[in-house]
């Protein structure tokens, strides 16, 4: 950035050749008849509005065309895994809030379930399971609302962002009522949840669902069907099915490439198996409606459609929830039996895996976090080359990266 712009043009040698032609992203052929120029290196980030935090992407650009991209991470590295080996099992729970801070409930759930996998014989009460699912799904809605809104911002539409935040605000108010925090909840604990729903809370969740179902139509019309938005995102950043699997993409990124895979259905945990058998929700899988299968539009579409499915899951839970205990029999000083377990759950961004190793003590041997953002953002490197600068922004936005999770 600090280099002088004029200098970057120095050393160019003129060339006149009719043979050299390249295909532009628009499909046209461009002939190299003018002065040949050097590529320029461009730092997108660590402080850049489109990188959703402090990711840095080193771009090599030829005018508007990106000829190479290299993401650099680590600006938000907070040593979560090292901390996990130094604090007690329960003390680590608040740290899980902080990696994907937009879906803290799901992170709590993933970590709790990984520890519970080691604690044989620990029964999670049914009401706690219900509350967990309600919170996790509401949080999924909130997270997808951010994804939808900020993707609009990346494309240049401001208004969807504010619409999305209006409903997210309500969602956060709901969480504030149940656990006292708005962003870093630490609500789902090992063995259950730490607080029962206050009186009237479940009714308010139901009202939220009613309103959200109406507002969702607005979201869909406002952005997803907008002609400019479609033009900007369709056929951009196409990830084929094979590529998606090879890169280990999960969640909406994978479903956006047409792979019908959702851990909630295919490897059911908690009560999801029961909910699926009841036919309460579906898994939206992209079909390449507006362009080729696996483009940015498809990924965004999957997220937008998933919000409605989450509402259905919440409604199912509201219909079936019954009074009861909210936390299992977990001692104050937790000693987790020896063993190791990997538990993956369906986070809004993909599979959040926790690999925990215990030697029977109060402190973990290893808490490995497989952050979906970390895996998903790796694909940008391969996608950006050959696109336009604006498309590069669209591609980063469509991965819905949360830097807290890539860097942990």
């Amino acid at each position, binding site marked *: *950035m*600090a*280099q*002088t*712009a*004029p200098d*970057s043009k120095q050393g160019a040698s003129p060339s006149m050749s009719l043979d050299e032609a390249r295909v*532009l*992203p*628009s499909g046209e052929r461009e002939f190299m008849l003018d002065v040949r120029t050097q590529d*320029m290196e*461009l730092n997108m980030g660590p402080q*850049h*509005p*489109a990188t959703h935090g402090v990711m840095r992407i080193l771009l090599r650009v030829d*005018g*508007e065309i990106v000829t190479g991209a290299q993401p650099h991470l680590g600006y938000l590295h907070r040593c979560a895994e090292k901390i996990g080996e130094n604090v007690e099992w329960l003390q680590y729970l608040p740290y899980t809030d902080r990696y994907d801070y937009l879906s803290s409930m799901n992170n709590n759930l993933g970590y709790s379930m990984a520890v519970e996998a080691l604690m044989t014989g620990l029964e999670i009460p049914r009401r706690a399971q219900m509350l967990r699912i309600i919170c996790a799904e509401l949080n999924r809605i909130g997270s997808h609302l951010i994804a939808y809104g900020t993707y*609009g*911002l*990346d*494309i*240049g*539409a*401001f*208004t969807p962002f*504010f*619409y999305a935040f*209006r409903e997210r605000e309500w969602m956060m108010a709901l969480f504030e009522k149940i656990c006292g925090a708005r962003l870093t909840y630490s609500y789902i604990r090992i063995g259950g949840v730490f607080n029962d729903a206050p009186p009237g809370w479940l009714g308010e969740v139901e009202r939220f669902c009613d309103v959200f179902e109406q507002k969702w139509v607005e979201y869909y019309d406002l*952005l997803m069907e*907008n002609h*400019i*938005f479609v*033009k*900007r995102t369709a056929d951009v950043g196409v990830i084929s099915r094979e590529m998606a699997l090879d890169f280990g993409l999960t969640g909406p990124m994978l479903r956006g490439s047409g792979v019908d895979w959702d851990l909630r259905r295919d490897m059911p945990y908690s009560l999801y198996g029961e909910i699926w058998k009841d036919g309460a929700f579906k898994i939206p899988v992209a079909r390449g409606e507006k362009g080729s299968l696996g483009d940015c539009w498809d990924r965004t579409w999957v997220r937008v459609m998933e919000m409605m499915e989450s509402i259905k899951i919440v409604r199912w839970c509201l219909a079936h929830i019954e009074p009861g205990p909210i936390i299992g029999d977990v001692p104050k000083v937790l000693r987790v039996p020896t063993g190791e377990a990997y538990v993956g759950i369906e986070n809004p961004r993909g599979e959040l895996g926790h690999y925990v190793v215990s030697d029977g003590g109060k402190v973990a041997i290893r808490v490995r976090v497989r952050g979906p953002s970390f895996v998903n953002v790796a694909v940008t490197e391969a996608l950006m080359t050959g696109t*336009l*600068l*604006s*498309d590069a*922004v669209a591609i980063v936005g469509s991965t819905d990266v949360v830097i807290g999770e890539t860097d942990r």
Partner: protein
Amino acid sequence: MLAVTETPLAAPAPVGDGNLVLDLLTGLRPESVPLWAVMATSALIAVGLAVALISLIAMFSTWMERKVAGHIQCRYGPMHVGWHGWLQPIADGVKLLLKEDIIPKGADKVLFVLSPAIVLASLLGAMAALALSPNFFFADIDLGVFFILAMTSTTTIGVVMAGWASNSKWSLYGSMREAAQVIAYEVPLGISLMVPLIVAGTFNLREASAAQGGWYGMHWFVFQNPFMLPAFLLFFTAVLAETKRAPFDLPESESELVSGFLTEYSGIRWSFFFMEEYAAMFLYSAVGAFFFFGGFESPFTWAVAQMAPHTIDLGETIGTLKLLGEGSLLHNLVAVATIVVKAFAGVFLMMWVRWSLPRIRIDQVMTLGYKYLTPLSMVCVLGAALFELAWIRFFGGAS
């Protein structure tokens, strides 16, 4: 410079040649003051008025933008400074003036300081050709709209200079996009404006306005020719691109280029670019109003012009003042109100578009400009010309 026409607001005084301020100053001049000093003062007053006008427009537009954006986005916008935040632009202006003036270390200092000045100056120049009422304007130029287009295009030079001088790659991107975009859209802008020019037969804003006075003040050009409405849509699209407004705000595009050519600017220099943007929006909207939507003409203007003339005498120095009737004070005030309302309606439309649509990509901008808008505007010109010819041929041109 505040000239008055052959139907003057006040009766002409001997020296000033129809210049209101000059006349006034000459009348009040003591013997010891030389005449050139009086003329210079009068020129300065006119410049001051133009600057004040731009600042007022920019201030009002920023407030309006925030309110429009706020209400589109389910919020209020500024609410605390004054009634519904109407003093917010003043608070912002004070803040911007008091901010530290930062010039980046590697920047080309001269160009960096010069470019906001060029941007604002070229717009001030363009403002000179804008008539505010039938009898009140800064400069009555025969090629008025031509002059406005030429002067506003000059702002591009300032923007390109700013991008280059900032010595930042993002700024360079912004300015190159601006240059490419303005070159692409200058063509459809000019050609689509040819359509009303064909109908009006004049480049002068006041004359164009006067030609739309029939039909109780509703004989606007847009109703005179079937090709006028498509031409206006093309004109509006080109204006959006020309003034860097969404969906054509690629030179700034916050999410891609940080802030484009404004990245390294701060404080009052930064605000100059914004004053230019809002003033340009107003100016283009006013031009659109003059050449498509009747200019000063509206049923109200028409009604005032029909009133019986009424004149009062204000004494030796100033002369007589017309209050009612054609060319009177009230007529001029209504005309000012009409054009300001029409221009801000255009500005509102631009804001509405900005807060509703995403941004388009640079190759799409170029494609739209060269492949669609330019040929379409040419078709419009051809169609309008043939229509006018046929009208004259078969109906004797009594449009």
